[in-house]
């Protein structure tokens, strides 16, 4: 194939994955550039994990083409495995081993010489702040600590591409920030490409480019800024005494579509809210009870494209997903 851009470290073309009649990944095409942070943003069941599993050789595809570092995902699995690091959505540590042992076994599997392995283990443990607990069994760790250890492990062999499937699900904001700071630093210093998925909108904003994925399809792919620019300016949310009348009025003066929002409010988009609002309040034919304006977020982009919101996950999401997995196994 000669149309492959050498700058692209991952190329996915018309990828399809079917599970017994269910199209989990539905004909998606995208590429990831070297040394960028690429994000998959989408609701539960959108097909994020499935796509990652195919790219990292864990799952076979139904059809399509996938190459990574120029290696074919079906024919050159070992070459691909050599250049990727993986942080799974579901826990994958050995609970009955210590942190250091988990890292040691991982390093052995990547053929890292023992002395280097020791140094690097200390290095990555320091990064995720687990040095003082390195000799404790993972069983005794909290969920957040386990997650941090998994990230440390993903970095241990200095992969060219690091996959992070919901890396911060269930972590506290402080730890989350720390992990993201580290990931940004990593990209700068180590020449690493990062492919991540997340439900947390703010988090995906650190990405250079984002693919918004829903029901197995990519519905938008661009930089976070460009995506937000597709929305016509700021988002205005209004609570009024008479929505129907107000909606008609807004449509008349702005020409933009007005939608119903949560809690009986209505919302629409406007170019320059700071000039618009004072004028609007003065002239409104209906009494305004509250009004707010804010910059668009990626959630608004998603809402705009699908008419639904990406549900923000809470801390127990990881458990839900686990029990879902258990359920899946029992079939």
């Amino acid at each position, binding site marked *: 194939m000669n149309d492959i851009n050498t700058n692209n470290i991952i190329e996915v073309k018309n990828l399809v994955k079917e599970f017994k009649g269910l199209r989990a990944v539905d004909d998606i095409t995208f590429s990831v550039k070297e040394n960028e942070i690429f994000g998959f943003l989408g609701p539960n069941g959108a097909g994020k994990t499935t796509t990652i599993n195919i790219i990292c050789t*864990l799952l076979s595809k139904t059809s399509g083409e996938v190459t990574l570092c120029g290696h074919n995902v079906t024919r050159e699995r070992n070459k691909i*495995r*050599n250049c990727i690091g993986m942080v799974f959505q579901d826990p994958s*540590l050995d609970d*009955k081993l210590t942190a250091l042992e988990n890292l040691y*076994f991982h390093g052995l*599997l*990547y053929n890292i010489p023992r002395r280097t392995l020791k140094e690097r283990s200390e290095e990555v443990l320091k990064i995720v702040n687990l040095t003082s607990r390195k000799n404790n069994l993972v069983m005794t760790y909290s969920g957040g600590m386990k997650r941090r250890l998994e990230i440390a492990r993903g970095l241990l062999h200095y992969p060219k591409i690091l996959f992070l499937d919901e890396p911060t699900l269930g972590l506290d904001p402080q730890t989350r920030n720390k992990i993201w700071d580290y990931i940004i630093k990593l990209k700068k210093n180590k020449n690493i490409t990062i492919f991540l998925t997340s439900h947390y909108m703010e988090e995906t904003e650190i990405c250079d480019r984002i693919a918004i994925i829903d029901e197995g399809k990519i519905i938008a792919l661009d930089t976070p800024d460009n995506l937000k620019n597709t929305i016509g300016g700021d988002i205005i949310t209004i609570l009024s005494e008479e929505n129907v009348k107000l909606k008609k009025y807004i449509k008349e003066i702005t020409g933009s579509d007005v939608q119903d929002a949560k809690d009986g409010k209505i919302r629409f988009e406007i170019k320059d809210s700071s000039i618009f609002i004072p004028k609007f309040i003065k002239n409104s034919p209906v009494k305004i009870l509250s009004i707010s304006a804010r910059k668009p977020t990626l959630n608004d982009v998603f809402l705009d494209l699908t008419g639904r919101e990406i549900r923000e996950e809470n801390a127990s999401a990881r458990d839900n997903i686990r029990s879902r997995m258990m359920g899946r*196994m*029992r079939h």
Partner: protein
Amino acid sequence: MKKELIGVYTIWLRDIKRYFRDKPRIVGSLAQPILFLFVLGTGIASSLSTFGGGSGKDFLSFMFPGIVGMTVLFTSFFSAMSIVWDREFGFLREVLVTPISRTSIVVGKLLGGSTIAMIQGSIILLLSPLLKIPITFAIFFKVLVIIFLVAITISAMGIVLASVIKSMQAFQVITNFLLMPMFFLSGALFPLNDTVKWMKVVSRINPLSYGIDAMRTIILNNPDLQLYPLWLDIVVLVSVTVVMSILGAVLFSRQD
């Protein structure tokens, strides 16, 4: 090649580390054979003399190799079976994205399971003085070789099943409908020489019966209790081991 050997070693080492760390499991898994040997065995032995059979001591000696076989059967099967949930939730999922071949994973797992089975089997063997069964070093090591063969066969069987059946519940069903009959029809608890015909037929396709026959021949050296010649036991065991291991590696390497 060196990379693959390190892979095998890593998988093996992990199983061994986990084994020695899990003290309750060690005690638990030894409780069953000891119970069988000293409670069930002694009970049956004394009832045999009540019903006018041979002496009780003969029965306990007869049963002893069977209990070693039982220990090996359960230990290696369950250790191989851990590959099921390990693959979905655990460490193994991580191993699957490393550049180690699936075959090395399977080999590491087979060796891990059989090492543990050899340790457990040895512990039971060391109880022999309590039953006044003389075991020399030579006998001990010969039995260990048989244990190794049986353990690999059973572990490989576990991996074959785990590759085909992926749900936990189905596995429990298998334990009941495969493992227990395998144990009962292996000659572990009663001689197969003069039972009913169907039992004899079934026992002939049961690899465990060859393993237990071999151990019994080595430990007791009593031609009356012997089913097949020792060489035949070994030939059958080695063949089944090879076939099962290859099958296990092939099935496990299949991508889903």
